[in-house]
């Protein structure tokens, strides 16, 4: 049976948890250095909503996180930067990458990013994340 032309063309995926607890509004919260992702062709990005796709109170690598959900995260944007320090996607609204807004679809991409130059931004001054707050992103790549 041939693939649907809508299939997500990926070989591997990696989920990154970005801790945002203790940050201030408009602070750039950089993604961690990741040798696996940098330079790879990113074919999809999905925001893993806490309490929807994954349990909200999650322990990853022995560290406890409170994963944000659509109710608490219409405040974040994701900016992707490539290895030449050029912004590929500036202020990509995080909520559109989640299951609630995208109705189960994974947003498809065709780009190469430098993970440690890309960042998440909290753009609302009234939101103070709890100490264990985190944003989980799944990158699909090949």
């Amino acid at each position: 049976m041939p693939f649907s032309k809508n299939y997500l063309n990926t070989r591997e995926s990696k989920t990154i948890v970005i801790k945002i607890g203790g940050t201030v509004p408009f602070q750039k919260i950089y993604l961690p250095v990741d040798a696996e992702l940098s330079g790879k062709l990113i074919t999809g990005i999905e925001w893993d909503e806490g309490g929807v796709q994954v349990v909200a109170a999650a322990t990853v690598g022995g560290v406890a996180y409170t994963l944000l959900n659509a109710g608490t995260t219409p405040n974040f944007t994701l900016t992707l930067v490539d290895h030449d320090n050029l912004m590929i996607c500036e202020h990509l609204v995080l909520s559109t990458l989640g299951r609630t807004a995208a109705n189960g679809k994974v947003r498809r991409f065709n780009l190469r990013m430098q993970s440690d130059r890309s960042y998440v931004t909290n753009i609302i001054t009234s939101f103070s994340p709890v100490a264990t707050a985190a944003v989980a992103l799944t990158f699909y790549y090949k």
Partner: protein
Amino acid sequence: MLVISRSYLVEVNLATAVATGNRYFFLDVPQLRKVYVQGVEAFDITGLAVSPNGKTIVSAAGSLSILVTLCVGDKEDIFQIPYYTLISKNNGGIIREFYNKQINLTKSYVQLVGTAGLAANESCIFNFYYK
């Protein structure tokens, strides 16, 4: 299905007192000049609460009173498309795709057909997907 290469978030602020018939033009965005726009997505306050410039995004109720017109050159190619239509979460997660349109932002505008749920200084916000 849209494959995203590049994207840019664009804001249109409802700067003056809102009134039926008011038009608010997009400002020039150098990054979007002469590029091929493949898709546009809009948001209400439930998708993005505040713009990067600190302006409150229009409410879900207010989004029903907004029409969007996007120009290619001098032609109004995308004429009065409802803002609601461009909000992907209202439409099963679908991002409205265009066929490589070179949008002339400074001639494009949003227009109010009512004022219910809208307030001055709120912003419409769009994510342009382009290559």
